[in-house]
């Protein structure tokens, strides 16, 4: 693995749209980067911010959260909850000194296999550009205790430390 860097993406795919999009991409034999390792969840709204941080902490270089299009969620609006959490997460990542592009959110309906495949390809390319995830030293030894800006953020800070 050393001579050419292959990033690892953990993909949270919702059971109804994105997982089926991935199934369809496979059935249609679309070839895309094998770098995404899928985890099936019932809804993108099930993805806890802690899970994303856990994946990054455990060695993933990026996390893809994929759900149904807004307005098409199997559970009406779980994807919108995911979208809100994603926005917060990105702020948190920036505070950690981690590139926000490492956590992406994608809408792919069950018929959008090509869209999902393309997104994985693009994200893989982006992560190759960014290189392996290096947690900033300050985060690793817990010395980055500046005042957190919101309650949500400070909670997640403590949870990332639990994870580590």
């Amino acid at each position, binding site marked *: 693995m050393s001579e050419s860097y*292959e990033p*690892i993406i*953990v993909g949270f795919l919702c059971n*109804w*749209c994105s*997982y*089926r999009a*991935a*199934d*369809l*991409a*496979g*059935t*249609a*034999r*679309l*070839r*895309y*980067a*094998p*770098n995404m*390792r*899928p*985890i*099936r*969840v*019932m*809804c993108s*709204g*099930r*993805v*806890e911010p*802690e*899970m994303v941080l*856990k*994946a990054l*902490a*455990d*060695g*993933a270089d990026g996390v893809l959260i994929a759900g149904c299009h807004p*307005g*098409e*969620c*199997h*559970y*009406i*609006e*779980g994807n919108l*909850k995911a979208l809100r*959490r994603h926005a917060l997460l990105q702020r948190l990542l920036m505070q950690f000194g981690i590139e926000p592009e490492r956590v992406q959110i994608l809408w792919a*309906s*069950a*018929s959008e*296999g*090509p869209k999902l*495949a393309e997104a994985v390809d693009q994200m893989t390319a982006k992560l190759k550009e960014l290189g392996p995830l290096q947690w900033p030293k300050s985060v690793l030894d817990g010395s980055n205790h500046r005042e957190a800006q919101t309650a949500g953020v400070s*909670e997640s800070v403590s949870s990332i430390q639990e994870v580590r």
Partner: protein
Amino acid sequence: MSEKVGVYICHCGTNISGVVDVNEVTRWASLQPNVAIAREYKFMCSSLGQELIIADIKEQGLTRVVVSACSPHLHEKTFRSACSRAGLNPYLFEMANIRELDSWATEDHDAATHKAKSMTRGAIDRVVQQFPLEPIPVDIKPDTLVLGGGITGITAALELANAGCKVYLVEREPSIGGHMAQWDKTFPTLDCAACILTPRMVEAGQHPNITLLTYSEVEAVEGYLGNFTITARKKARYVNEELCTGCAICEEKCPKKVTDEVFNAGLGTRKAIYRPFPQAVPKYPVIDTTSCTYFVKGKCKACEIFCPPGAIDFNQKDEILTMEVGNIILATGYDPFDARKISQYGYGRLANVFTSVEFERMVNAAGPTAGKIVLRDGQTEPKSIAIIHCVGSRDENNNEYCSRVCCMYSLKFAHLIKERLPHAEVTNFYIDIRAAGKRYEEFYHRVMKEGVHFIRGRVAEVTDAARTVEEEGKLIVQAFDTLYGSQRRIPADMVVLSVGVEASRDSRQVANMFGLGCDFNGFFIERHPKLDPVMTMVEGIYIAGACQSPMAIPESVAQASAAAARVMGVITQKTVMMEPVKASIDAERCSGCRICNNLCPYSAIIFHDDQKKSEVLTALCQGCGTCVAACPSAAISGAHFTHDQIMSQIAGILWDVREASPELV
């Protein structure tokens, strides 16, 4: 904790093993924590494959099972039931999808093998955290919604109604009958379409078990298998159905004529108050408010004045109806390809280029020309007719698939032309003749013997620019004849474009409303393309006919009956078992913050004011897990997708990084 996990890696013939080194994954899997046994097998889903699992559970005392094979949407049930049969709770099983998400998505053998290991390890680490669950019994409401009143929907509704089940048959147009009612003859038997269809329409219209809702559209769907609530809009007809006798005097007296774009494909006219065709079921007309003089200018009311029973009601309003049904059959059909998209064929620009839909109406004895084949001027009989196959089908620029019906209806056209205009020259331009069906090939031979010409080649252009005297005043069809090996220019008086079958234009909206998937072309996705073509991924929702894929009448009818049989199977069970994937709240940990209350899209979480605790109503919970992710006290757990299960899976799929840099953990 020590569990005995059995891991089974499937070759799937060569579908997986062609890319993934299955033997290596198996060897590696046997060394993973908690794994008691790891095996590979050619086809895990076969009965022999399942027997392997059953035998190991019984003999080796496995407590957990992982199968790395295809998508869980395909075979999760299969393996869960195998576990059940061996006495293991089916929720102690986990599947890793190393086919669709791995071997079919890459050609890189090493990367695919590595990914398969990661996914398998994720499943192993997850399954250890899983615990036994019991399915939840659900009562099935006995009524069924059939959406779409074409031959497919009619057949499905009749099958169910005849078996004693109540059916709501909902159709958007003013009459049931669908596309089949437009056609003249049906191939290859040359039965008159109306003669075989209208008795069924009448039967459906009169059946005591069928509630017919025409000129109606479903607006919302809620609920789940056994308990759907459907909201439909019954559009105002401006005709009181209680009073109307269907005498059609209003149609006769209405002074406003408009082009009939729907039923007659623009070839004929209808009145502003109309029934699509005389045998319409139900017999009540509707007023088209966009063209009715009264609605446009505020005066006229000729229909009201002449209506003998006084059934016209200009103040009628749309009605919103709700229905409680247990199952749903979608039979929403298709739309013909829009021939204008292929501009070089000249449809809409060259007068005597017709679509097959127009031609069907023209040859129909009840159609606008009373069955006479004439040019656009309405009187001249053509002496030569060219029929162009595969318009919009088998074409990379439009639809790649074969529409399956065009060859046969083109042959039928050729036959009908020869029958009515024996001296006309008929030339078919085809790519391949696809006559695969009972008595189809024989029909093809019959048409050939009738003196119809066949030119094998895709038509490049239809033009009126003559190069020779013979071409003067005619349409010229230019094609490369692949059997003859040269360009051909065939002059013709009339050109018929055999347009293909496309998914209906709003199929994606319908799919979204019902929570289904559509393929690239907009056709609904079936649960299994070979073995379960009428079931969808959503429990309780079935599909039949051309909304699934292009198909002719016999296949549509067969699917309709199949879907009806499936629904009856569910209804007769009265209760079915539902997935126990539900959220629950640990009252001890609940702080009563009520964050989850407003998050739940189904209002399934109630708050007990006295105890200051929230509670999930299991019957309403759909198991999305949004509340689980949001609970700040981690008091909510989502069965089968618990925090620990997902966290373990994350750790599992990243096994390699952890092994490479242990300091991370």
